């Protein structure tokens, strides 16, 4: 006969202690607030970003005194005025915007057939192969991938070495706009496919067969059946690729070699080269606004309810 709880297994006593402790600080009546308690750590963690944004906003309103290298005590909009009046800002905004749009179009055009073949194939080995080919670069990271392209495209790179074997002079393949865009497409492709695949999985193959039976060519089936049905996935993929490439730093820095800066590179330079934190912060605020505006614009034109945001929805 057990006469005291001390003979219970250790884990039971730990559990009881935890239960008692928990019911003391969190009585039954508080039950309806339990989900908020569970969300609290995540909300706090993400809160660091909100605080960070506040600091950027604050810095962006302080101007640098170039004689003392001190930041002003009072707030002013001078940094923003300067940003919008300098042609340098417009050049990089235009370069980033145009680049991200081109990258998005190419990436989605490549991601769609990739996701389609991956979803539709009956061959499970092929599907596995396509998934691995997708995840491997996704998991390797941007810097190593960019490094791979440096080896392939550099002046003493593989392509130029191969060309010189057949007697062609080296071509400058790196440090230009197309190189940056190419690197971005390669970086974004896994994101695009992973956003599109669930949307294509949701379209039954029978619908395509039905369209075919009714005499539609495959191009028409794609255009009038599959693409409209895959729309949430296309919008989701478009938004993710657009915003990530608009704000990318590594590809323009590594493959652009400093001559093809995007907005993120300009912000970095303001903080670490020019040491004009206020101006850099103003550029960062403009980038945040630009990104949100583009997402908003896509919502307005194509409608919301996309995969990108509904991924967290019930």
């Amino acid at each position, binding site marked *: 006969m057990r006469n005291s709880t001390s003979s219970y297994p250790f884990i039971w006593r730990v559990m009881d202690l935890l239960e008692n402790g928990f019911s003391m600080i969190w009585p039954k009546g508080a039950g309806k607030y339990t989900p908020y308690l569970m969300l609290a750590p995540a909300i706090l963690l993400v809160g660091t970003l909100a605080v960070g944004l506040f600091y950027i906003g604050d810095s962006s309103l302080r101007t640098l005194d170039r004689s003392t290298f001190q930041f002003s005590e009072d707030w002013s909009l001078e940094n923003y005025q300067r940003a919008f009046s300098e042609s340098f800002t417009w050049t990089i905004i235009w370069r980033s915007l145009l680049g991200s749009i081109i990258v998005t179009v190419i990436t989605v055009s*490549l991601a769609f057939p990739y996701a389609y073949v991956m979803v539709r194939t009956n061959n499970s080995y092929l599907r596995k192969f396509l998934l691995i080919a997708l995840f491997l670069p996704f998991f390797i990271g941007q810097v190593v991938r960019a490094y791979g392209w440096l080896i392939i495209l550099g002046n003493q790179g593989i392509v130029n070495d191969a060309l010189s074997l057949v007697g062609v002079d080296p071509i400058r393949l790196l440090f230009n706009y197309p190189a940056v865009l190419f690197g971005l497409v390669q970086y974004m492709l896994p994101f695009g496919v992973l956003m599109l695949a669930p949307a294509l999985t949701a379209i039954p193959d029978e619908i395509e067969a039905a369209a075919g039976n009714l005499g539609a060519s495959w191009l028409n089936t794609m255009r009038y059946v599959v693409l409209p049905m895959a729309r949430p996935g296309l919008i989701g993929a478009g938004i993710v690729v657009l915003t990530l490439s608009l704000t990318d*730093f590594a590809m323009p820095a590594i493959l652009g070699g400093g001559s093809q800066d995007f907005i993120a590179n300009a912000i970095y330079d303001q903080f670490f080269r020019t040491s004009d934190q206020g101006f850099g912060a103003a550029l960062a605020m403009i980038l945040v606004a630009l990104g949100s505006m583009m997402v908003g614009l896509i919502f307005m034109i194509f409608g919301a309810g996309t995969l990108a945001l509904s991924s967290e929805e019930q």
Partner: protein
Amino acid sequence: MNKPLSQRIVFWTLVIISILTLSAPTFVVLGASFTSGNMIQFPPEGFSFKWYGKILGEPDLRDAFFRSLQVALICVLVSLPTGTLAGIALAKYKIKGSNLIQTYLLLPFTIPLIGSGIGLMLFFGEMRILGNLWPVGIATSVINLPFMIWAVRSSAIGLDPDLELAAENCGAGPIQTFFNVTLPAVTPGVITGSLLMFILSLNEFLVSLLLVDARIVTLPVQIYNSIRSIITPDLAAISVVFIAVAIIAITVLDKLVGLEIFMKSK
């Protein structure tokens, strides 16, 4: 796939272009790391492991790798409990203002990385904690947290609420129910999420670049700094570490939950 020939030709051409673009850098880095010459060139100059031997003797690269590992572990330690609780809460309960909360929890994805990084740099600088590795771990956890929440949430949705009620009927308190019923049920999601967090944190470049100083550079930053000066095969050898980790992660992920999980709609 029983599709018309012309469709197959068009699709497969595009798919092959994609596969080549996706895989080329990986294979080139792998190939370059085994060169026996002092330069990376084509055709490669013989086969050797000499650059692997060389990186073992380079404390800069080795230390940077262990720092990255530390950052990734801190990231998982922080985001695992945080993201698991949040993911379960979002899947299980009808929450007032849940739309607002979800939009808020997606901030790490909607704020551009350079913005998040600079904001955290200013914030951590104000708190005088810059120059340590753990704030870098926390930062990589913050910017990738939605992945963790998403992974746990999608496996918690499949959890039958009756199971938890049954446990409570049998006399289990909320803590016991959580650890013995809820948590085992969402384990696949927790594993998927933690793996993603680990890999993304190990590879994180921009936020690392903003938060580290010269004494505590992480491996991606170290590689970035080196490729801007001169490209030598030892960098390829150290990059293979990332490729190896990626292969391990993919294998684990595939064995445990199956890669196909990423093709399903939630």
